[in-house]
């Protein structure tokens, strides 16, 4: 429940102010909370970057949604007595059927597109027969509740069982042997369809024996699109997220301004056998014989390079300082790059520490950022380190962008080129402002 709803619950008449682009979202959220007439008011978009006199103009001007003076709306929202309309239609059921009304294949495809149940690439229709085949990929009962998801922290959770996950796995084109991985991802509580205005994607990395068992690609073209398992597991995570959480519809349950092409699918396996270092899941405390999937949240940017060449240090500094400082890098290296660094004497940890030591920006630049102001600044004000020290720094003083726990390195690729990429990828649970404080590596074996 949102803050406004909680204050109303506590007997405080409340007026939430939004910018106009959130009008449909605000209405949908109020409806789902059982307060369809929550008295929202609106100002023009944007608020970010508008100076004080501009915001004063918003306050003295019209509500662009209600088309009346903004402050008149605020005052009336606090003082206008409640009416019967405030209680009408507030209670309702939203049951979803197990099966849809039978129809032709063509019509059903149109229905799925019209209802925004797809990612607008062709899907495999989830017939009873296909779903039954998918369910053979696990020993778990079809009615076992797998988890619950929501597009953002202020929306309600939707719940789902094994069968519902299977339906979405079929739609994505996955094979039954991939199903335990998809179930583990579905159980994570992490959505691949966050409604954030900043357009997140998720990156899923598979470790352990299951990579070989199902033929995942950790060689040439590992990041895609050259392997059915890699591709369809990542796609299934996106489809199940949007359908099992109650949608991912622009303006209602999705507000990402730019969207994100990595949200179609981003899943790969680590080349554990060709890495000079321990596999990622072993670093995280799992056994090498465990099969796991780790979910990174981000996908905002990509930096690329080769090496380590003679000038790799300057290249790394340029890449690291070009990153969005809120979202630490997941560094994905071809085995050639990893062995190159190992030959230079680096362990994974020492290379991460080198990156932390050299990734610095002037404090002015560090704080002049939407996410830093919104999500991190309150922690700095509250005295939480290292943010408090970074806030105390003089504007020109260099401050570190990341801590060693922020940065991760994973090895994959076919060694056709000594290439690396840095993707925006926060391993949830590390750092404030993230929606989940647990470790987002999940045992696949529990879902076999």
């Amino acid at each position, binding site marked *: 429940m949102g803050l406004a709803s909680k204050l109303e619950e506590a007997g405080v008449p409340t007026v939430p102010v939004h910018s106009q682009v959130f009008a449909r979202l605000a209405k949908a959220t109020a409806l789902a909370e059982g307060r369809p007439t929550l008295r929202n008011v609106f100002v023009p978009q944007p608020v970010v970057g508008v100076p004080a006199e501009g915001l004063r103009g918003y306050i003295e001007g019209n509500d662009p949604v209600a088309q009346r003076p903004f402050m008149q709306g605020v005052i009336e929202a606090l003082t206008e007595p409640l009416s019967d309309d405030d209680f009408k239609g507030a209670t309702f059921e939203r049951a979803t059927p197990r099966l*849809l009304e039978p129809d032709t294949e063509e019509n059903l495809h149109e229905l799925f597109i019209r209802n925004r149940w797809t990612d607008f690439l062709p899907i495999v229709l*989830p017939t009873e027969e296909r779903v039954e085949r998918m369910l053979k990929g696990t020993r778990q009962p079809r009615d076992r509740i797998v988890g619950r998801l929501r597009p953002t922290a202020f929306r309600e959770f939707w719940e789902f069982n094994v069968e519902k996950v299977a339906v979405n796995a079929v739609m994505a084109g996955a094979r039954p042997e991939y199903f335990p991985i998809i179930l583990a991802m579905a159980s994570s509580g992490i959505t691949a369809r966050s409604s954030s205005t900043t357009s997140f994607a998720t990156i899923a990395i598979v470790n352990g024996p299951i990579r070989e068992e199902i033929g995942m690609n950790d060689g040439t073209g590992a990041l895609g699109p050259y392997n059915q398992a890699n591709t369809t597991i990542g796609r299934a995570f996106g489809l199940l997220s949007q359908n099992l959480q109650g949608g991912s519809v622009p303006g209602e349950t999705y507000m990402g301004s730019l969207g994100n092409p990595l949200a179609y699918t981003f899943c790969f396996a680590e080349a554990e056998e060709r890495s000079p270092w321990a596999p990622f899941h072993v670093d995280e405390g799992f056994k090498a014989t465990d099969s796991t999937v780790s979910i990174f949240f981000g996908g905002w940017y990509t930096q690329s390079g080769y090496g380590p060449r003679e000038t790799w240090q300057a290249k790394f500094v340029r890449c690291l300082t070009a990153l969005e400082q809120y979202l630490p890098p997941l560094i994905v290296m071809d085995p050639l790059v990893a062995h190159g660094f190992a030959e230079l004497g680096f362990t994974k940890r020492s290379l991460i520490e080198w990156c932390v030591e050299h990734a610095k920006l002037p404090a002015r630049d560090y704080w002049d950022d939407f996410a830093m*102001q919104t999500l991190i600044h309150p922690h700095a004000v509250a005295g939480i380190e290292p943010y408090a020290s970074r806030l105390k720094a003089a504007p020109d003083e260099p401050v570190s962008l990341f801590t060693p726990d922020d940065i991760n390195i994973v090895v994959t690729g076919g060694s056709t080129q000594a290439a690396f990429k840095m993707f925006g990828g926060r391993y949830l649970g590390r750092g404030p402002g993230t929606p989940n404080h647990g470790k987002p590596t999940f045992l696949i074996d529990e879902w076999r």
Partner: protein
Amino acid sequence: MAGNIAVHDPRGFPPKVVGKRLAPRLDRLDGKIIFLVDCLFDNTDVFIEEMRQWFAVHLPSVTTRVIRPRESWVDDPEMRATVAAEGQGAILGVGL
């Protein structure tokens, strides 16, 4: 009907929505304490300050108090308790 097939609904199970009452509204704002809640989004502190100044100029009989949660996107029960105990109304800005 020939050619028709049955397929599964891909959606999860939504919770039942139970209607909840809005709080009783105020008969007037004069003499009341209204909390201006800065939701900590980028630049909302400036917006809230402009709101405070608007009340000071146009409705000086209203007492406004600016308050902030500990962090954005995270519930702050302590702040809510303060608003409920000491205020008669709240304006949240800007964002959900």
